[in-house]
């Protein structure tokens, strides 16, 4: 176990950082390239199949290069006479749902996380444990009564049914709390109070700007998770007013198995997310590195 005897002068020659942390030798690059290929391959392959006609799926040996059918397949996908689901509606629905949920989760998580991190009140620890405890509950457990609840509220088959239950997330609260505890100095808060801020002012002027890195991370993760949510939208929305995942699944269980069409659907369903990811991901990843999410 390495220990540092404080006060001992470090006399050795300063070796470059890379060597100290483990140099990025050729093996590292090779491994990472393999990982990158493996990570991207299924996406790439779905693009390949989407750009061929249906026979490519069962071609043997398998097809690995893109074809020319992509735009044709895209046209078929959005031609609601041809497919059994309205894909455009699905895209719009998913965008609305994911956006609203993301903003809400980030806001409410910051709010609650701030309270748990910096405010003193009775029952703080107990309630924090309760928040974490709610994560233990499997989503599918309450599906049936939740569905009945949605029907009573008149929300079944409508977007509210998938938005409302997701407006706050325990994971987000937990994440925010950990971050705020570690990264927001109490001095800032005291300063704001002295300046005359009530608690909400502290939240608005101090906390929100300070949690930008982790808010971006949480926002991206929440957006992705909501976009990819399958089970609950399947139960409560159904194929008539679908989100994108339900639409893809409906495509896949269609009468005639047209895999090229299905994978065109999955490809289209991934695109918006990919765009968000590519645009924001860079900022977020370097944000993680700067902000340091401490577990």
């Amino acid at each position: 176990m390495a220990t540092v005897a404080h006060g001992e002068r470090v006399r050795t020659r300063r070796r470059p950082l890379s060597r100290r942390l483990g140099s990025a030798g050729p093996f590292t690059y090779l491994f990472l390239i393999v990982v990158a290929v493996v990570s991207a391959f299924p996406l790439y392959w779905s693009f390949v199949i989407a750009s061929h006609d249906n026979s490519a799926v069962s071609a043997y040996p398998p097809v690995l290069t893109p074809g020319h059918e992509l735009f044709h397949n895209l046209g078929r996908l959005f031609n609601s006479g041809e497919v059994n689901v309205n894909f455009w509606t699905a895209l719009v629905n998913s965008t609305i749902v994911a956006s609203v949920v993301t903003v809400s989760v980030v806001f409410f998580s910051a709010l609650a996380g701030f309270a748990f991190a910096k405010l003193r009140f009775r029952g703080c620890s107990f309630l924090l444990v309760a928040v974490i405890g709610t994560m233990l509950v499997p989503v599918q457990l309450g599906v049936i009564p939740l569905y009945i609840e949605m029907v009573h509220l008149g929300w079944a088959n409508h977007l509210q049914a998938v938005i409302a239950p997701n407006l706050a997330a325990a994971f987000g609260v937990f994440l925010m709390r950990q971050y705020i505890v570690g990264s927001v100095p109490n001095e800032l808060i005291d300063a704001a109070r002295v300046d005359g801020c009530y608690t909400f002012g502290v939240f608005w002027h101090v906390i929100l700007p300070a949690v930008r890195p982790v808010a971006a991370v949480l926002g991206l993760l929440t957006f992705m998770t909501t976009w990819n949510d399958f089970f609950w939208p399947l139960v409560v929305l159904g194929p008539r007013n679908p989100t994108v995942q339900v639409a893809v699944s409906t495509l896949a269980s269609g009468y005639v198995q047209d895999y090229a069409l299905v994978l065109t659907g999955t490809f289209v369903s991934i695109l918006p997310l990919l765009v968000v990811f590519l645009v924001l991901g860079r900022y977020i990843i370097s944000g993680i590195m700067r902000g340091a999410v401490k577990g």
Partner: protein
Amino acid sequence: MSGQTAVEARVARPRRTLRSRVQRVDSSVSPYLYISPFFILFAIFGLFPLGYTAWVALTDRTLLNPDTHFVGLLNFTNLIHDSYFWNAVENTMAIWLIATVPQLLIALFLAHLLNAKLRARTFFRMCVLLPQVTSLVAVSLIFTQLFSRQYGLVNYGLGAFGASHVDWESGRLSSWIALSVMVTWRWAGYNALIYLAAMQGIPEELYEAAAIDGAKSWKQFWNVTVPLLRPTIIFTVIVSTIGGLQLFTEPYLFEPLKQGATGGSARQYQTVVMYMYEKAFAGTQFNFGYAAAIGWAIFLLIAVISLINFLIVRRIRSVEH
């Protein structure tokens, strides 16, 4: 910080008293106000259904038949004697084990590599998150094709190496492996980034000191990085446990015929959540009472396993600074 003259202070005092009263109320009420949205939402959309499920588990409620009778713990006693339930538990645990352990080790290793000075660092870091961007439905469809018996890429690859084709979906271990590959592929990068973020908090001096002591990068990893990552590792283990034991979408979409949600002809990859779904929604039974009991069993299982995991992972050596 902002200075005040004595005059101003005297003038400000009466207002400050009211103000400080308001501030006291604000300080005591605000925390509860701020955490209440979460709890209110949870109460409406989480707790209430839970309570109702607890009630339903004690009845013989089915979807179509409005007549419901209280049956006490009958569903639970039936569950204990239900070999298909225990089969599902076994499948779930096996898949979870095969998926989670290598996955977290890979994630740890990946994070270590991504932490080094690299060219195109951000590119690689973003690549490992790509599997998270791909939707579950898409992943399942794509991987089911890849693992298809006759036309799948995996079998094609095996054939190229001279190995015989494997009927992935039909076998017990093979289906577990196929599903574990899916789960690992999806989550390894995500966990790697979590570890990576936590690694940013490790001060360089510790590495320096280890290097002075003659430790190569590998030893530095084990002796410095891992112990300091312990809280994060615990976090990922618990989150992976909770998620892994609830596995549903991948095995559900892996099945060629979704009619029964049985997890294969011999229920070889039916997970517990899938079993609950089968009892509640598949086929003609719509046995909500029994499905609710299964749901509670799952909850118990997750709680117990999470606790065990927590206790095990805690025992990673911690470092005295």
